[in-house]
């Protein structure tokens, strides 16, 4: 068995390591810019604990950051923090998940997320490009979608979190919708989101 990493693999690992150290240094720098570090931490957490909802990720974001800042305060080196970063992110994600299990069970009770199974998301692309600028573009596009139509935004978030859309709309807006209406809303929300996203991509390219 060939256990040696290919040159390509070594280059990828080196780049990832540098990206992580750069993000840590930006956070501990004089301006305390934490966005890049937050993105990395959330990606690590989500990969190991994919069932986290975006609300839970919000909690993981803060808890993991506070744990890392404690290490800054103790004088830990960037290299040491980088070595432990994934473990820190995943531990916090598991803590948050354990705390959220009971409420999530309650939310999903009696509803097997039929809508999701019937309509797999076309947005689920395995080979997504994960450069920071792309993240930033998606963040901008989602923010624009929320400003333009909060129901569409909630519909998309319900789908990616795995919550039934009718239940989400009932919780957020006290609005009763049928599965048929939810499907139509989802289709329109996707179209609107993709239009915003492609508009932003064109603006960046020009």
């Amino acid at each position, binding site marked *: 068995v060939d256990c040696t990493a290919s040159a390509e693999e070594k280059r990828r690992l080196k780049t990832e390591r540098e990206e992580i150290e750069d993000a840590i240094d930006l956070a501990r720098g004089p301006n305390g810019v934490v966005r890049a570090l937050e993105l990395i931490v959330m990606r690590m957490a*989500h990969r190991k604990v994919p069932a986290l*909802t975006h609300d839970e*990720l919000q909690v993981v974001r803060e808890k993991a950051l506070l744990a890392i800042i404690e290490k800054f305060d103790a*004088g830990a*080196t960037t290299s040491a923090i980088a070595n432990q970063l994934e473990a820190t992110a995943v531990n916090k994600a598991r803590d948050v998940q354990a705390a959220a299990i009971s409420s999530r069970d309650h939310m999903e009770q009696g509803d097997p997320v039929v809508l999701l199974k019937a309509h797999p*998301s076309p947005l689920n692309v395995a080979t997504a490009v994960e450069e920071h600028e792309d993240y930033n573009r998606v963040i901008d596009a989602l*923010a624009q979608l929320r400003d333009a139509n909060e129901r569409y935004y909630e519909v998309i978030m319900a789908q990616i979190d795995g919550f039934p859309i009718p239940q989400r709309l009932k919780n957020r807006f006290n609005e009763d919708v049928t599965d048929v209406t939810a499907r139509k809303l989802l289709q329109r929300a996707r179209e609107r989101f993709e239009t915003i996203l492609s508009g932003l991509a064109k603006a960046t390219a020009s």
Partner: protein
Amino acid sequence: MNPSDEMLKIAAVFVEQPDPSDRVKDALARVKRAPLSALVDQMIRESSGFALKSALKKIADLNQGQVHDLDAPDFRSYIIARTGLSDEHLRDCVSAIATYAKVKQAVESGAGATLIAARAEKGEIKNEVSPSDVLRELARRVK
């Protein structure tokens, strides 16, 4: 580019709260000077005209680590990458910091002060000796 569900979920976190929480901001604002940097700051303050001063300042400015971290290869490689110091220059700095730290520890425990006071040039006893004084005495005796 088509965003993945993971990307959308993470993006939503920033849409709902664009900036870090106040707790995170407060915690960042309260981060203390790292022990290694504090030691090197003191070393620079006490040692005027020190040849390694600018290299040491670059290490202090990283604001991280403790003296024993200087033994870790990944931290050394990080320092070289971030400061542009040569390997040789870094070795000199590490050696100077380690010596200073040892002397400081000896002075603080009392052993160094007694030792140096017993051998001082004019035979006087000093109750308070700084690590730099100790190092100066050592240099004088070596000459």
